[in-house]
C-alpha cells in the first residue's frame, strides 16, 4: 500500500502552506483534493475566455512576511502588490478613500470633519497598539488569551507605577475593543457619519456581526494587523498577490513539488482509517487506501470530524462539541467579466485608492438593518458590497481592455425564511448588485460579458465549506485563540492521535492568511522532534 509521512486533505491555501512546510522539512507529503486544480476557495476560475479571477475568494490579502519568507516563496515567483487601501462609495454619491500618506489621508477626512481628521491620530494609535497586542497571539500556536491578552497587561500595570505612565487606560481599551459594538467604539473618536461608516464597512466584511452588535468593534483592528507603526501616519494599505490568489497557489505548489512533495487532484477522501486508537491513513472515493504517519485536514472543523470519520470512532462528546461550533454563511460572491474599464464618475479621476477595492455602503444604521435582515433570513434589500477589480493593477487577468470584477455581497443568509434560495431570488440578488454597481458606475451593465452569483450554499456544495462560512467558524472571542475551534482543542492538535486540523477552523482562524497551515505543520514537526520555525 502507498504510504506517506503526511497526507494533507484539501489543497486550499492553508493545506498547501502546511504541506510546503512539511515537505521542506524532509517529510514525504501527499496533498489530496477532490477538485481538478489546487487552490480551494482561492482557486482560479475562468469566467469567460481570458477573464480570470478567484471564483469564491475576493482576492485581496497577503501572507505574513514570516510565512512568505519561511517558505522562500519569492524565489518561486510570488510578488505582492501594495495598494492604497480602498474607497467607500455611499449611496448619496459621496465617497471616502484611504490613503497611506498621513497628510493626504487627514485632508481626506477633513472633507467630512476637521475634528475627525485630528481624531484619526488617536484612532490610529489605538488600532496599532491593539494590533501589536494581538500580533504575538496570532503569530504562533494557540495561547490562552487569559494569559496572553490580559496577562501581559498585569505585568504592564505593575510596571506602570515605576515608569509613571500609560496603563490604567489599557485594560479599559482592551475591554472596549472586545465587547463594544463597532458603532459605539467609533463614536468615541469620530463625529462624521461618513468617516464612521467607512471604517465600519471595511471591518464588517466577512463577519457574522453587525456594526451595532456587541463585540463587533474587535473587527476594526483587522486592517491594521499587518501595518507597521512607523509608516507615514495614514490609513493601512491593502496587500494583494500579483497574479491574484492563483499566483499564491502556484508558488506554494511549486515549493511542495520542489521539495519532493506530491499533489493528487480529483482524489476525494471519503474516510479516515483508525486503527490501534490512532489515525493510520485515508480511503479515497474510488476505494483506494493510502497509509500515512499523520493526516492533516484542511477542511473546516465540522466536515473534518463529522464527514471523514465514523461517528462511533470519535471520542465521547466530540460530535456534540463539533456540532455546536457556530459556522454561518454571511456572504455571496458575484463574479463579473467586463469588456471595458468601468468609469466611476463620483470618484475623482485617477483616484489611486480604487486599486485597493471599492465598497458600496450606506451609513451604519443601514448596515445594521442589512444585518438584521440576515438574522431574519430575508433576502438582502440593501447589502454591503465589497468590490475588487484586480485587473486594474494586474492587467494580465483580463483580455486587453477588459476587466474582471470580484464582489462579496453581505449579509446573505444560507437559506431564506421562505425556504431555500429559488432561481428567481438568486437572479434578483444579481440584479440588485448590478443596480448598486450601476449606481456608482452608470452604464456598467452594458459591458457585462459574464456574471455569476454564488450563494453560501454554492460555496458549501462546490468547495465543501460548511454553511458557506468563509471564516471557517465565527470569529468572536469565544471561538478564538485557545477556544478555536472549541474549548479543549485550541490549535491544530485534535483529540485523535496523528490527526491535525490545518484549516482556519483552527487558530488563528481567518485573521492570518496561512497561519493555521503553518501552525499545524509546526505542531506536527514538533511531535516528530523536528523544530522548524514557522
Amino acid at each position: 500500500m502507498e504510504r506517506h509521512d503526511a497526507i494533507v486533505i484539501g489543497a486550499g491555501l492553508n493545506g498547501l502552506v502546511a504541506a510546503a512546510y512539511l515537505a521542506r522539512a524532509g517529510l514525504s507529503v501527499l496533498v489530496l483534493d477532490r477538485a481538478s486544480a489546487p487552490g480551494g476557495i482561492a482557486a482560479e476560475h475562468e469566467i469567460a475566455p481570458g477573464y480570470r479571477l478567484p471564483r469564491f475568494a475576493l482576492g485581496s490579502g497577503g501572507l505574513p512576511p514570516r510565512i512568505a519568507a519561511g517558505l522562500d516563496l519569492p524565489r518561486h515567483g510570488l510578488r505582492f502588490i501594495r495598494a492604497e487601501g480602498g474607497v467607500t462609495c455611499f449611496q448619496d454619491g459621496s465617497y471616502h478613500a484611504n490613503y497611506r500618506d498621513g497628510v493626504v489621508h487627514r485632508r481626506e477626512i477633513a472633507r467630512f470633519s476637521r475634528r475627525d481628521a485630528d481624531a484619526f491620530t488617536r484612532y490610529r494609535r489605538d488600532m496599532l497598539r491593539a494590533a501589536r497586542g494581538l500580533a504575538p497571539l496570532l503569530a504562533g500556536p494557540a495561547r490562552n488569551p487569559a494569559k496572553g491578552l490580559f496577562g501581559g497587561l498585569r505585568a504592564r500595570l505593575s510596571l506602570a507605577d515605576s515608569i509613571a505612565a500609560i496603563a490604567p487606560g489599557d485594560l479599559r481599551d482592551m475591554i472596549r475593543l472586545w465587547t463594544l459594538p463597532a458603532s459605539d467604539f467609533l463614536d468615541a473618536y469620530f463625529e462624521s457619519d461618513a468617516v464612521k461608516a467607512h471604517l465600519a464597512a471595511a471591518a464588517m466584511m466577512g463577519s457574522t456581526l453587525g456594526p451595532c452588535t456587541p463585540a463587533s468593534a474587535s473587527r476594526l483592528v483587522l486592517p491594521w494587523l499587518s501595518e507597521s507603526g512607523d509608516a507615514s501616519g495614514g490609513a493601512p494599505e491593502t496587500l494583494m498577490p500579483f497574479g491574484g490568489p492563483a499566483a499564491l497557489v502556484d508558488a506554494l505548489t511549486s515549493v511542495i513539488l520542489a521539495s519532493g512533495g506530491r499533489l493528487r487532484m480529483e482524489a476525494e477522501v471519503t474516510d479516515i482509517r483508525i486503527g490501534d486508537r490512532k489515525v493510520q491513513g485515508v480511503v479515497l472515493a474510488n476505494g483506494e487506501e493510502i497509509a500515512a504517519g499523520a493526516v492533516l485536514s484542511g477542511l473546516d472543523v465540522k466536515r473534518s470530524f463529522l464527514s471523514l470519520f465514523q461517528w462511533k470512532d470519535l471520542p465521547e462528546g466530540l460530535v456534540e462539541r463539533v456540532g455546536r461550533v457556530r459556522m454561518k454563511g454571511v456572504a455571496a460572491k458575484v463574479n463579473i467579466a467586463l469588456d471595458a474599464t468601468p468609469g466611476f464618475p463620483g470618484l475623482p479621476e485617477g483616484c489611486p485608492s480604487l486599486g485597493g477595492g471599492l465598497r458600496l455602503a450606506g451609513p451604519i444604521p443601514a448596515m445594521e438593518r442589512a444585518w438584521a435582515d440576515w438574522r431574519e433570513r430575508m433576502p438582502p434589500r440593501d447589502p454591503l458590497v465589497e468590490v475588487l477589480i484586480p485587473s486594474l493593477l494586474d492587467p494580465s487577468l483580463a483580455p486587453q481592455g477588459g476587466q474582471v470584477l470580484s464582489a462579496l455581497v453581505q449579509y446573505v443568509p444560507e437559506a431564506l425564511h421562505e425556504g431555500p434560495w429559488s432561481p428567481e431570488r438568486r437572479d434578483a440578488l444579481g440584479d440588485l448588485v448590478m443596480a448598486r454597481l450601476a449606481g456608482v458606475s452608470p452604464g456598467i451593465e452594458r459591458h457585462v460579458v459574464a456574471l455569476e452569483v454564488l450563494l453560501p450554499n454554492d460555496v458549501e456544495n462546490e468547495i465543501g465549506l460548511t454553511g458557506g462560512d468563509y471564516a471557517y467558524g465565527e470569529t468572536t472571542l469565544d471561538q478564538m485563540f485557545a477556544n478555536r475551534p472549541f474549548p479543549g482543542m485550541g490549535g491544530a492538535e485534535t483529540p485523535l492521535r496523528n490527526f491535525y486540523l490545518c484549516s482556519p477552523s483552527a487558530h488563528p482562524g481567518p485573521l492570518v492568511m496561512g497561519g493555521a497551515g503553518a501552525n499545524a505543520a509546526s505542531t506536527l514537526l514538533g511531535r516528530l522532534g523536528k523544530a522548524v520555525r514557522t
Partner: protein
Amino acid sequence: MTPDTAHPNESQDAEIDLGNEQAAVDPALFEEMPPEPPFTRTVHTTPLHLVTSAESRTNRWTDWNGYTVPEVLTDLGDEYRALRGTAALADHSPLVKYRIFGRDALAFMQRLVTRDLAALEVDTAVHVIFCEGSGLVLGDGLLFRLGDDEYRLVTEETHLAWMMESAQGFRVGIADVTATLALLSLQGPLSAACLNEAGVANMDGLAPLAARWVDIAGMPVYVSRTGASGDLGYELWADAEDAPHLWRHLMDKGAPHGLRPAGFALRELARLEAGFPRGGKDYLSAFAAVASGDASTPFELWRSPPVAFGKTVFNGGRALRALASAPPRRRLVALVADGLEPVSLSSVLSGGRMVGSVTTSAFSPARGANIALALVEAVALNGELAVTASRHEGLAFRETVLGARVLPEPAWNSARSLVLPAPLRP
C-alpha cells in the same frame, strides 16, 4: 493671450450691454468648483507662497504641516548670518493657529493648559503645555490673549479633536484659522530697526511677549515680540490677502538694514540653537505615540515646565502632581559633540550602552560644533556621554563615536531678546 487660445468670435461675447438689466453673466462664475481630491493636490501653499517662491534661488522646498514651504531660499549660511547679524524674514504660516473665544474662554484655557493664565494680560503671550489625563504631553505652543474673552493658540500640530473634547461644558467657540491668518517671522538683532523703518512707531518699546495692533502701509497687523530664535524678534500676524504686500513692504524697507528672506531650514537651526523642542520631531504627542514609551511628560521635555498645581482642575493635573514628585526617567537635553566637521548624529551612548536618541541635530555656526536635542535616560546624564556620528566620504559611509557634553545654556541665547527698549542699531 496667445493666438492659439484666442477665440475668433471673442469680441462679440465680451461685449456687455450696460443698459440691459438682464445682463449676460458668465454662469461659470457661479458654478461651485468641485473640491480638489486630496491626492491630486501635491502642492498645498501658504498665502505667502508667491512672494517667497519669487525669492527662491535654490528651488529647494520642504513639507511643513502639509504645506510646501521653501527649505532654503538663497544659502543657509547667508540666511544664518542675516539672522544673527542683522535680520531675517520667514513665512511661518503653516503653524497651526486656533482662535478660542466666548464667555468661558479663560476658564476653558485654564482647563486645557497646565500654566496658570489668571495673570495673563490682554495683548501678551505665554508658552503653554497641554497634557492628556495621564499627564503625557499632547503639545505645546504660544498662547496669546487677544481680548477679554479671546485667545489665540499657536501650535506645531493640530489638536482640534482634543480641544473640542475638553471644551464640553464650556461656552466657547474654537476655530482653526491656520489657512486665513498669515504669519511672518522677523527675527534678528535689527528686527526692531526694520520695523521702525517700515513705519511702525515705538516698536522698540514693546516688551518681550507683548503684542500690539499696528498699521503698516495701511494694513492692520498684529505684531508680537515673540519667536523661537533666542534673539530679538517679532512675529507679524496678518490677513491672508494682506500678507504678500506686507512681505514686500518689509523687504523693501528692511533690505538697507541687511534684512534677508529665509526658509524653513533656518527656522529649524535657530530653534535648535535656542533649545526649543518641536512637537512631532523632538517629542511625540501622546495620541501619536504608538509605543507608549514614546510619549513624554512635561518634566522630561522642559527643565521647569509651566505647571501650576495651585490652580483648580486642569487636564492631567492630578497625574502631573504625582509625576512632579518623582525624578523623570529621561530628559530632553541639548548636547554638543566633539569634532568640528558637520556630521549627522543618531544615538546617545554611555559606557558603550545606548541611553538615548538624538531627535534633532545640526551644525551650529554659533558654537562651531554639532549640537543636538536628545532624549537621554536621566541616570546617564551624570556620566560621560558619547554620540554616534555618521558622514559620507565619497562613496564610503563613516560612522564614528564622538564625545558629547550637555549644554548648560542654549547655544544661542542673546540678552537682546529681553532688553527693553529693544535696540534699534547693532
